[in-house]
């Protein structure tokens, strides 16, 4: 059922127009979002992830890289709640620190690919002609690869070169030593893979809003191209983009873990849920009766985050899109 903005039912059953402010729209949106129970649950899961990632040094009982061979390969105990790995590193601490790895990679990768997707998509949709031709053909080329394989290929071929380039510069040298340089490569690979799909979505949205009267009015009054895109088109096509943004964050977490699982993303000692699955699976301990969780726990965390983001996406969809609000759900 379609509810016009600024109109809401009163007690008498009559429809009375009301002034909408930004604030009431926000409250309205939150009301619709919070009706979706699983979306609210998703928010809590994502919140826990962010807290773990930000405060990992204070939450985790041990360091993620400190070896202690005296306690290697231990099953859960009071000191090490989830046991230790081959090098005697605390499993629980590594799981918590891996939240930080994912918290660096996923938002950055998604931000970069969304920035590129928004810029190229809106330019293509708005300007048309040869600009559109070139941008969309490039997007076609990139989309013709299956995403993960392309990220793999980039990481295999570009990583050694980028790492040696970074080592050569004095500023980035320490970053390479710390191991965090790999995160930059993963972010780059995921961004290159991510933007074309978004550019397509944005272009389609821009095309559908370009010919509307309010754009014509803005153009007729002499507003320049960038301003039309930024102030008039983007706000109107934002809803579907925000929904996709939420889903992409989950996808980026999986992609990072997948690359790291294959040994082509984040490499130990920096913990990632993906490389933890690999390390723990290649270590025989998990096949014993008490420790299969060593392999499924990191995977379960990744799954939980994907689940959370996909329901947050659903909730946002309902909150931002009044047309599918009330009755039709």
């Amino acid at each position: 059922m379609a509810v016009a903005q600024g109109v809401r039912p009163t007690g008498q059953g009559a429809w009375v127009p009301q002034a909408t402010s930004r604030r009431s729209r926000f409250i309205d949106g939150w009301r619709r979002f919070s009706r979706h129970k699983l979306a609210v649950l998703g928010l809590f899961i994502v919140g826990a992830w962010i807290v773990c990632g930000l405060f990992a040094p204070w939450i985790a009982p041990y360091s993620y890289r400190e070896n202690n061979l005296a306690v290697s390969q231990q099953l859960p105990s009071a000191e090490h709640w989830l046991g230790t790995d081959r090098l005697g590193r605390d499993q629980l601490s590594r799981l918590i620190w891996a939240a930080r790895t994912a918290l660096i990679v996923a938002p950055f990768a998604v931000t970069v690919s969304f920035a590129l997707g928004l810029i190229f998509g809106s330019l293509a949709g708005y300007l048309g002609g040869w600009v559109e031709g070139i941008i969309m053909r490039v997007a076609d080329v990139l989309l013709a690869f299956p995403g993960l394989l392309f990220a793999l290929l980039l990481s295999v071929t570009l990583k050694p070169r980028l790492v040696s380039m970074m080592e050569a510069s004095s500023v980035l040298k320490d970053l390479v030593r710390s191991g965090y340089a790999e995160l930059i490569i993963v972010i780059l690979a995921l961004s290159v893979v991510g933007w074309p799909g978004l550019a397509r979505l944005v272009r389609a949205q821009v095309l559908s809003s370009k010919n509307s009267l309010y754009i014509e009015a803005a153009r007729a009054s002499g507003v320049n191209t960038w301003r039309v895109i930024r102030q008039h088109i983007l706000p109107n096509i934002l809803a579907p983009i925000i929904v996709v943004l939420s889903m992409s964050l989950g996808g980026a977490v999986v992609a990072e873990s997948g690359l790291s699982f294959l040994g082509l993303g984040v490499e130990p000692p920096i913990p990632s849920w993906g490389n933890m699955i690999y390390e723990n699976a290649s270590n025989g301990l998990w096949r014993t009766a008490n420790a299969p969780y060593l392999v499924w726990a990191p995977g379960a965390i990744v799954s939980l985050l994907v689940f959370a983001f996909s329901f947050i996406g659903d909730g946002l969809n309902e909150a931002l899109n009044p047309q599918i609000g009330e009755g039709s759900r």
Partner: protein
Amino acid sequence: MTAQIIRRLLWLPFLLIILTIITLALAYYGPGDPVQVMLGPRAPKEAAEALRQQLGLNDPFPVYVVKYISKALQGDLGESYKYRGQPVGPLIWERLGVSAQLNLAALLIGTVIGIFLGTVAGLFRNSWVDYGIISTVVLLDSIPTFAITLPLLFLFAVRWRILPPGGWQGLLDIRAILPIAILSLGPMTVFARQTRANLLEVIGQDYIRTARSKGLPESMVITSHALRNSLIPLTTLFGLALGGSLIGGSFFMETLLGIPGIGRLAFETFLARDYPVITALVILTAATIAIANLVVDVAYAYIDPRIRAT
């Protein structure tokens, strides 16, 4: 419509050539010395140089590209670096069948179950049945393949000893159950959600109200009016899934379970920087996806006359 199809068919070779150039550039300028991979680090200098000459690695890049493309057009995709002496074409061809069987079976099973679940969820919308189905499929789909495969293999093969531990003996072998079951979760979720969404949209349409008001029994309204129209957009989805899943779909699965398909070949050759195989795989994948997209659009226009008109 016809003009558009022709335009896209003409664009296809260009797309493939650009992709070839990009992959060859990664191979040519990328790290790793294929000659060293093939001959080992202690090979005599003269032999290495001769092989380098033979592979065309001493040519300038444009020459290298032109040579590759002209050979490829004659059906010669070069020789694998990793599997020495094996031409790339047959190497891929052998494994293509395995991947195709695996992914096709998973896609078909996932689609059928997904459409069924989506229909049930849509018919009982906003009830606990609906919520149960949708949250279950989304939860199952949230689990990445690389996270679920090993634990399940552990349960079935090690703890309960019901299934053999990995491997591949053809589609009708007991070993195929686990990979197909896991791979079908993806399409199942997509189809369940999309079928439900389409069904809800169609049920709100005027012609459904008309069908009801002319006294048609509800079962007829659902089967011959609602369901039929809500299935149309799914053809697009099916085609795209078909194109996309050929190589990327079972990548982790094949690597983890030791299934000799294209995904595993891709993983092995990526790690070994076996560029002749990588290039061929990239072109094959891109061509599959591009052709699937095209076929989908044509089929879509054929099924839904409203699109043809524009």
